[in-house]
């Protein structure tokens, strides 16, 4: 039944285009757009094929867009970077009138986000999630409700955070009760992080790292992303995601079309399929971040992690959405973080 629905909705999408195109997608590896079944369903419905290229950091993504004009048709851009990409002329406005699912996207994401600039859509809100932390359920009898658990001597040498200056500073900002987008007291953040250092076993840099350290029982708790936590739990790791009372960092990812794309129609179709509830419910079963499409989020089973945890109004009230960070601030954070690491 689902399959049937899925195909009809795709066929409806495909009605507009007759010729087969090959579109190139630039994304993180293993992040939704490259799921085999999703690409196959899109190819079956539209006749267009999908090729992927990957990046491992936002800076790399921007560099690839700058250096290879015309090479990509769809690119995943975190909302904190969309404006920069637009200002550099890397991405163009998207005509959403032909998209069937765009109207179902939660208002909060279309009106009050960095993706829609001067009434033009530069990124279609796709997924969102939290950067908070996950615990090894074997190490805790009851899940902690505070971020201060990272500084608990009981977990000395058993915690980890990601090796990323921005994430580390925002983590310190949350722990010192500050606004993550406007850190007033950077000294107290540095002091707090400095106290955290002896607690840390190692830094992690990818989801794969994280899973390995957890599987090898090296860690009691570590910062993590909500979608990844759902995937790790799905793999059978003893992992539970925690949104502490101090709050968490929320991020929004959008799908954009490079200004230099030569297959804009096919790209729009692909994005429409990516925000389709049929696509999302199936992806969610394999471990996905939260969907920006309200209809897709509603379609989830009540037991789903994304509906249970991220659909909880109490949780949503505690999160702070990440705003763009200018180069000077980024530089300051990087210096602080490198200094902390160097003194170990």
């Amino acid at each position, binding site marked *: 039944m689902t399959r049937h629905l899925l195909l009809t909705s795709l066929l409806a999408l495909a009605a507009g285009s007759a010729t087969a195109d090959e579109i190139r997608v630039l994304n993180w590896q293993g992040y939704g757009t490259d799921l085999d079944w999703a690409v196959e369903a899109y190819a079956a419905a539209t006749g267009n094929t999908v090729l992927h290229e990957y990046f491992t*950091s936002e800076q790399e993504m921007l560099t690839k867009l700058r250096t290879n004009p015309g090479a990509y048709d769809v690119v995943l851009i975190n909302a904190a970077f969309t404006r920069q990409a637009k200002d550099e002329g890397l991405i163009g406005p998207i005509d959403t009138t032909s998209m069937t699912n765009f109207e179902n996207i939660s208002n909060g994401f279309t009106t009050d986000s960095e993706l829609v600039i001067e009434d033009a859509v530069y990124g279609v809100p796709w997924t969102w999630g939290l950067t908070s932390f996950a615990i090894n359920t074997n190490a805790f009898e009851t899940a902690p409700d505070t971020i201060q658990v990272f500084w608990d001597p009981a977990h000395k040498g058993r915690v980890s955070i990601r090796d990323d200056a921005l994430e580390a500073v925002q983590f310190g900002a949350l722990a010192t009760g500050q606004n993550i987008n406007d850190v007033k007291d950077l000294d107290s953040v540095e002091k707090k992080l400095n106290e955290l250092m002896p607690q840390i076993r190692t830094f992690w840099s990818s989801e794969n790292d994280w899973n390995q350290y957890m599987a090898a*029982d*090296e860690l009691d708790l570590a910062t993590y992303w909500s979608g990844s936590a759902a995937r790790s739990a799905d793999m059978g790791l003893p992992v539970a995601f925690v949104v502490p009372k101090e709050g968490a960092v929320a991020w929004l990812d959008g799908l954009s079309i490079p200004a230099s794309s030569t297959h804009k129609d096919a790209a729009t179709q692909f994005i429409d399929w990516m925000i389709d509830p049929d696509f999302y419910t199936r992806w969610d079963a394999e471990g996905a971040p939260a969907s920006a499409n309200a209809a897709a989020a509603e379609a989830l089973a009540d037991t789903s992690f994304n509906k249970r945890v991220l659909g909880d109004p109490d949780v949503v009230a505690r999160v702070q959405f990440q705003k763009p960070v200018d180069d000077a601030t980024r530089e300051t954070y990087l210096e602080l973080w*490198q200094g902390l690491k160097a003194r170990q």
Partner: protein
Amino acid sequence: MAQAPIPGDGRRAAGLLAPAYLWLTLAVFLPLSAMLFFSFLTAAPFGTESPRATLENYRDFFETPTYALLLWKSIRLGLWVTLLCVLIGFPCALVLARQIRGRAREALFLLVILPFWSNSLVRVFSWAIVLRGNGVLDRTLDALLPFDVRLGLMFTPAAVVIGLVHSYLPYVILTSYLALQAIEDDIFDAARALGAGRITILRRLILPLSLPGLIAGAVLVFVPVVGSFMEPRILGGRFGTYFGTVIEDQFVAVFNWPLGAALSFILLAVVLAILGLSSPVLRRGLT
């Protein structure tokens, strides 16, 4: 050696050397000069904005105490690893060259070189499996010893040193071995005939005569270890930040190529300075 040059020799030599110099130009000089060029720019020349020339990347190094601290950490790491490689590698080479003959020597040689045939990343990950808590080493020791063993070596500076020593030890063994093998046996017979003991032979004959090989090995170890980034990153945990990892960050994570290039050239300059300062000692050893 000092023979009068035969006419036409120069041209022949130039012809024979040309491929080598061409290769050096292509493989070493051009990429290095591109990096040198980058290090004087405000941004990597990819975007729409054209970068300007600047000295800021070099000034950054002198204005940020973090970089000097990391450089010192890396040099200390280099000295430790070199010292350990020499302490372990030289005796190994001595035994290989003077005590073991025939097939056994070939087999041992193979064992020394064998790790070189595997990818270095694979080697480092193998060490991670061996060293980590409840890993191969912990379990083996636990099974052998009556008391509870928890070494906790993984994610410590010691783990980084172990990984690096393992990676670079063959250099010292190979260069020392070649130098040791070249020593004529007659010299030892003569020394013994004149009443020299084992220690005297080692101190007065073997060490001075094989010093060139030992020094070449030590330099081959020291230079790459000071700039190493993979081993510290994987094995060092929170202690794994060194000058090399910061350079890697500039290229891979932060995309500040000019700063990364500038830091690389500062490292190169410092390493050359260290080798230059120690050159009187080295030269004495090499002659």
